[in-house]
Each structure stands twice: as C-alpha cells, then as structure tokens.
C-alpha cells in the first residue's frame, strides 16, 4: 500500500495492487457526503481484434461488443444489479469508451454493501440467448438516437477520415447490423480475456477509510478462483500512418447550421508516462494559445463570422492513437476549415507563441485544474484513467508548471503538419 499527500492540491491518495492483480486507488474526502466508486476495465470499443485467453489465433468480434457487454453485465439469471444498488438508495451507471469500460455507483449510505455489489456483478457474468436478444432492441434504440445527433456524426466523421483502417473509427455502440451478430458465446469469450482483475482498477473517492476499502477488496478477491493474470494480446498497433488519411469528406443531414471539423493525426505514440502526459498537456496549451478565447486569431475569426461560440478543440491521446480536433458550427464550413488548416500548415512558425500570454494561459489552466477537483465524479474518472501509468491526477499541477514556451514550440513543430490534417463537413440537406 502506497500513501501520498499532495501538498500543492491538499489531496491524499492511497494506491495498491492486490495479489489478484486488481489495482485499488482511493482518494479520501472526509467532508463529502457522497462516495463515488468505479470499477474500470482496460477494454473498449477498439478492442475487437484479439487473441482469446487460452487460444493461439486472433479473432474478430462484431463492432460494439464492449458496449454490449457493459449493458449485459447488469442483468443476472434472477435479478438485476441496478436493483441491488437501488435497495440502498445508491445510483449506478456504466459507460464504454474507445479504450475503457467503467462501472460505477454513487452512494451516501451502506458503502460496503454497494462496493460488494459492484465487485460482484462485474465479476460474475450471466449471458443467455434470450437476454442478449432483448438487449439488441434497447441498444438499437440508442444507436438510432446517436444517428440523430449531428455532433456525434461529426466526431465519427473526422475519426473515419483520420483512421480509415484503425477501429477507433467505429461507433462505440456498433451498428444495428454488427450487434445482430453478438451471441452469449462471443460475450463470454471477450469477458474471459479482458475482465481479468489484472486488467482492472477499482477507484473509490469519498468519505471512506482506505485501509477498510482495501481489506474489503482483498476479501472479495480471496473468495474467487482467479487464474494468474495473462495480459490480453491485442494485435492492433499504433496508427500514425499519414498516407492512410482521407483528406476530406462531407455528409449532408437535415440540420440548420453547417458543421466543420479539422483533425490532426499524431504520428508518434503518446504514452501515459511523464513524457507522454507532459506532451499531451503541452499540445492542449498550444491549442489554447492559438485558438482559445483570448487569442487575437480567434477574435478576428469571430468578428469576421468565421467561428461562433460553438467553436471548440481538444487533444486526445489513447492506447494506439492520438489526435486533435478543432471545429464547430460555421455559416461557411470551408472558410473555417481553410482558416484552421492555414495555421496548422505553418508548423512551428506561430507568432502567437509569446511569453507574456503563455504565462497567463498556464496560470489559468492551473486554476481550471483546481476547479475540476471539486467534483468526485471528475476526480474518480481522471484518477481511474491514469491508474495504469506512473503519473497520477495529483501530479498534474507539477507537470503543468514545468512546461515552457519552448515545449510548445517543439510540439508545434512535431504535431502541426499539413499532411496530418483532415477535414470533415456536415452540410444541411437542400430541398429539391
């Protein structure tokens, strides 16, 4: 058990790895009423190609299987885990991303009971033909709902451009056609491979005694038969291939405002170690310097009607890929993407990178980071996300402080390349 107090943020974090391989991270918050607990699996929508546990050949699962599995774990032969949480007044939820599946509850009472329920329902799968087929109806509705969401379509449009051959291009939910192929056997096979304790993290944030939580998790693991951990074999490797990029696509939808998004594909892996974490924050600060609210460039585009308040940008670094997206609603979708592309094409030659404003932007980013620590949910999500690497959430203030303008210039030089750029537009349908 490792315990650290982080003076700069006034936070305590306790971390351990149990004999089963399960990681446990606890952030005590004695002044809070709520406890937020999350069990995360290093498995997401991109993990459709893998070598099943005990096999030697790789297999190809239907798109959307990780999300389907997440839904299906709640339902057991004779009860639903939702009801067990509900009996204590707790609320439960789950979500699936490209590389992570997370199950969580929030409770103010009977924390032990709820922790046991969480550990139990995730580690005790039950899939039958009937329940799997019924779930196809519910998830089919979810897929339909996302199809009506232009923001979702824009996001997966640009991912499809940047990653035509990498599975991150696929909707997390899969499609109505792909999930039709899901069977209990496929779910069990993926479950056995990825839901090993060594591939999972339990995160608890709230009014708890860390030692007690660890003992509870240890007792849970000791009561189960757990084989030695075998790390899942995932043949999908890092995709930094610029030649594969589709430079431009457009779609038409029944919408009011055209949407324009620009993607930049990262060409080198960004890991969750110190170097990678620092690089990811550096790129975010770089984007803020060039395109943020206090940027003269942003102001000139705003005044010219090229962008509006919907304009946003982000940098994402995950297992096997990293990219930035920039865009929003635009009266003239091409004008926005051309303006963005022209800035990126200049590489490291960015006159807006100057010291005085950089000091201010870094100062503000640090303030936003402190603000984010109020929310147990945000703390749990971020702590959990970083639980597989050596840099934790509460290290980030120090990492951020160490970044210099020269780091931003180096990142611009490495990341801003015209051949790494792609554009996706969604345009309103024109009535015939």
């Amino acid at each position: 058990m490792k315990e650290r107090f982080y003076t700069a943020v006034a936070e305590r974090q306790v971390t351990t790895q149990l004999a089963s391989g399960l990681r446990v991270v606890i952030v005590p918050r004695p002044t809070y009423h709520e406890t937020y607990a999350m069990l995360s699996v290093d498995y997401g929508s991109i993990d459709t190609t893998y070598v099943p546990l005990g096999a030697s050949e790789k297999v190809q699962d239907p798109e959307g299987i990780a999300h389907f599995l997440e839904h299906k774990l709640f339902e057991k032969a004779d009860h639903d885990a939702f009801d067990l949480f509900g009996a204590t007044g707790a609320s439960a939820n789950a979500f699936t991303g490209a590389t992570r599946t997370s199950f969580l509850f929030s409770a103010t009472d009977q924390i032990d009971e709820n922790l046991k329920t969480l550990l139990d329902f995730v580690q005790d799968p039950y899939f039958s033909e009937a329940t799997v087929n019924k779930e196809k109806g519910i998830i089919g509705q979810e897929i339909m709902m996302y199809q009506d969401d232009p923001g979702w379509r824009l996001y997966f449009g640009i991912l499809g451009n940047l990653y035509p051959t990498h599975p991150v291009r696929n909707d997390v939910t899969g499609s109505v056609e792909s999930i039709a192929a899901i069977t209990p056997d496929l779910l069990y096979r993926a479950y056995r491979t990825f839901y090993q304790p060594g591939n999972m993290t339990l995160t608890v944030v709230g009014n708890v005694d860390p030692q007690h939580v660890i003992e509870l998790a240890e007792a849970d693991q000791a009561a189960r038969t757990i084989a030695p951990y075998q790390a899942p074999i995932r043949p999908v490797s890092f995709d930094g291939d610029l030649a594969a990029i589709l430079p431009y696509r457009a779609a038409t939808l029944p919408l009011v405002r055209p949407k324009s998004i620009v993607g930049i594909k990262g060409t080198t892996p960004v890991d969750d170690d110190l170097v990678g974490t620092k690089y990811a924050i550096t790129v975010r600060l770089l984007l803020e310097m060039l395109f943020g609210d206090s940027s003269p460039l942003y102001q000139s585009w705003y005044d010219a009607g090229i962008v509006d308040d919907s304009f946003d940008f982000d940098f994402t670094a995950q297992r096997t890929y990293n990219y930035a997206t920039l865009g929003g609603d635009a009266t003239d979708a091409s004008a926005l993407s051309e303006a963005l592309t022209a800035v990126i094409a200049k590489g490291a030659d960015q006159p807006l990178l100057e010291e005085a404003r950089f000091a201010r932007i870094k100062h503000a980013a640090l303030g936003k980071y402190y603000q984010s620590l109020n929310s147990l949910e945000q703390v749990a999500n971020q702590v959990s996300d970083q639980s597989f690497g050596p840099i934790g959430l509460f290290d980030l203030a120090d990492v951020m402080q160490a970044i210099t303008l020269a780091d931003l210039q180096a990142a611009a030089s490495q990341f801003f390349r015209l051949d790494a750029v792609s554009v996706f537009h969604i345009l309103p349908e024109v009535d015939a």
Partner: protein
Amino acid sequence: MSIALASGVHLSVLPTTQFKTVRIELHFLAPLDVSTFSARTLLTSMLETSTAAYPTQIALSAELERLFGASFGIGVAKEGQWHRVTATLTLVNDQFSGEGTLAAGFALLNEVLNHPLITAGQFDQGVLARERENLALYLESMAEDRQLQASLATQALYFGGESGQGVPSFGTPEGARAVDNAALLSAYQQLLTRDQIELVVLGDVDQAQVEALASTLAFAPRPELSVPFVVDTPLRETVQAQTEEAPVNQAKLNLAYHVAAPTSGPAFYAAMVAEELFGGSPLSFLFTNVREKASLAYYASSSLDPYRHFMMVQTGIDTADRDRVEALIDTQLTAVQRGDFSDDLLANIKAGLLSARLAAYDTPRFLARQALLDRLASGHHSDFAAFKAGIAAVDRAQVQEAAAGMTLQSRYFMGGEELS
C-alpha cells in the same frame, strides 16, 4: 444567512471549506413578460463580451485568465412566474491561487454589470449586430437537438405557445433578430434599476468581507417583487395532441401532466415520491417496464417541476411503437395510482431520493440554488433534515393520492417519414 443590502437587493453568504472554489451567483429577477425574453437574452451576450474597461472579448478573457482561470458566464432561466438573468463566477480559493481573487472577482462583476460598453448612450452597433445574429443562429440550431426540440414543443403545447410559460426563457430566433439598440438599453435599465437582485456567495469566505465587497456593487434600492412565484394552469377537460413530422431515426413521444400537489407540506413530498416511482429513477415503472422489460425505448423518464405544477414524460422510441408505448405509459401511472407496488420498492424509491439529495449537498451549484429557493419559494426548506423527515413520512396512501392528482393534458409526437 440572508441580509438586505438595499430594498430589493439581498445577499446570502454560505461559508464552507468543503470546496476548492468560491461560487458567486448574481440573480436578476423580473416578472415573466414574454416580450422581454429576447432582449434580456441578447443582453447577456453583450455583457459577457465586452465592458468599458475590457472592450474586446480578448481583453475580458485575459482578465479571467489573470483571475487564475476563473469561470464566468451569464444565462437566463425561468423561476415560476419570474424571469431570471444570472451571472455566475467561480474563483479558485486564495489558498491555492496565493492571490486575493475574491476582491478581484467582485471588481470584475462590478465592471461587467455596472460599466458595460455603452458609448454616447448606445451599445456598440457592430458588436450588437454580430451577437444578435449569433444568438438567432444558435437558437435556430437548437432544432438539431431533437430531444430538446421535443421538450420545448411539449411545453409550448401545454402552456400555450405565445405565453410566458410556453415560450422558452431565451426567446425565439425571430425575437432575437428584432432586438434593437433601444430595446437592449431598456432591458439593461430594467435589470440594473428595477429587477429584484439576489446575490449568493458560497465558499471559504468571511461574511463581513463578502458584505463589504458586495456593497461595492452599489445596486440602487428598488421595490421587492410582488408577483407570486408559483404557477398553476387550470385543468383542461380534453387532452391536446400535436404530431410533428421530422426526418429522425428515433421518434419522440412526450406527455405533459398537470400536478395538483401543493409546493410544500406532506403532499409536496408525496408528489416527489410518486413521480420518482412513476418515472424519475432507474427503479421506476417507466424505466423498468417501458425500457427494460418491453425493450421499447432507450430513454423513458419523467421530470417534475413542482413550482409550475407540471410533469413531463419523455421517451425516445420507434415510430411504429407509438400506440403501444403510450398505452404502456398510461398503465404505469395507473399502477402508481392503484398502489400496485411493493413496500420494498416504495422504500427503495424513498432511499434513492434521500441519497441523491444528500449527494447534491456536495456540489456548490446545488447549495447556491437552495439559498436562492429559500428566498423565492415560501415553505422551502434547504436543510437535509427537513427533506429527510418529509420523505420519510410519506406513506402508500399519500403516494396514491399524489399520483391521482397527476392528469394527462398534452401529448406530443415527433416522428419519422413513414407518417402519413
């Protein structure tokens, strides 16, 4: 605790060391008047964009950056029969910033609200033209969010599309385009001199210091609002129906109900339990029977607005299932009215309400909201003990009675192309 800084200007300070931030909310309240919604909304965009000392967005954003990345925004909403404009500023505690951000934060609020960019009695015409167009385009684009569009259409149907309750608090695209400089100035004068003001400050602060800082805003005395807060719409004898055709993959079926329950006392708590049991939680009838068992919807839930005596059910479904879903929703409300639920389920529903409520006390937003409701809603109790006692006392018969007071009034459907 709340004090009057002047007639019609009140300050509530909530000292707490639980959070790393200080939250300041400045509410401006006026009687609900649909003709003012657009100007009040556009005014928030103008005030957020520039001030006399910070005449550009860059300058104002830079000041927020200097304030250790303070978060700032101005928005509009409805509170019963009142229209509310709220400026919210979140500052990092001095403990972490190592600076006196609280005083600087009040100075910024003073600048934004008391010294907007008005030259020769006019807002800047260029900024006005741009913000007006952006607002109109934004309001038009809200139609792209089908669930939101359906929700707004359901409220318009229930309350009447031209009424203050039926029109959204942020107005309409046409309304936004019609706002001129004179209307904007008039909205600003109303806000500054006649709106009732509620200032809420929450965080690691000292009452006396906040009082001193708040008084620097120097808001003039004004009459206290005398309009009642609560809205009640007379019961209709027949159910209204509206069907809209839209190119959607997932259809939306929404139902609006009149809720008879009062806004305080035992029957108020009973209505909260009845609504939670009907469709407010994952344990509810709508979630378990419409979504889970019948597999007919991705979402199916209810929400209660007690101060408007209003409840709405929202569902996302297949167009072909419309009649089945509607019948099934009706069956669920009947089940609550008849008492067709176990004691265990009732106990779990109550436990869920209590747990969610207690967890909400961990968020600055909820705590600040309670301070506002303490000022606006008579009989409101912001402390958890009162809420817990109220919920605990609700019995089966009271739940049935509260559900019997939920009457279907409006039915809204947005469906795909297969409609005739």
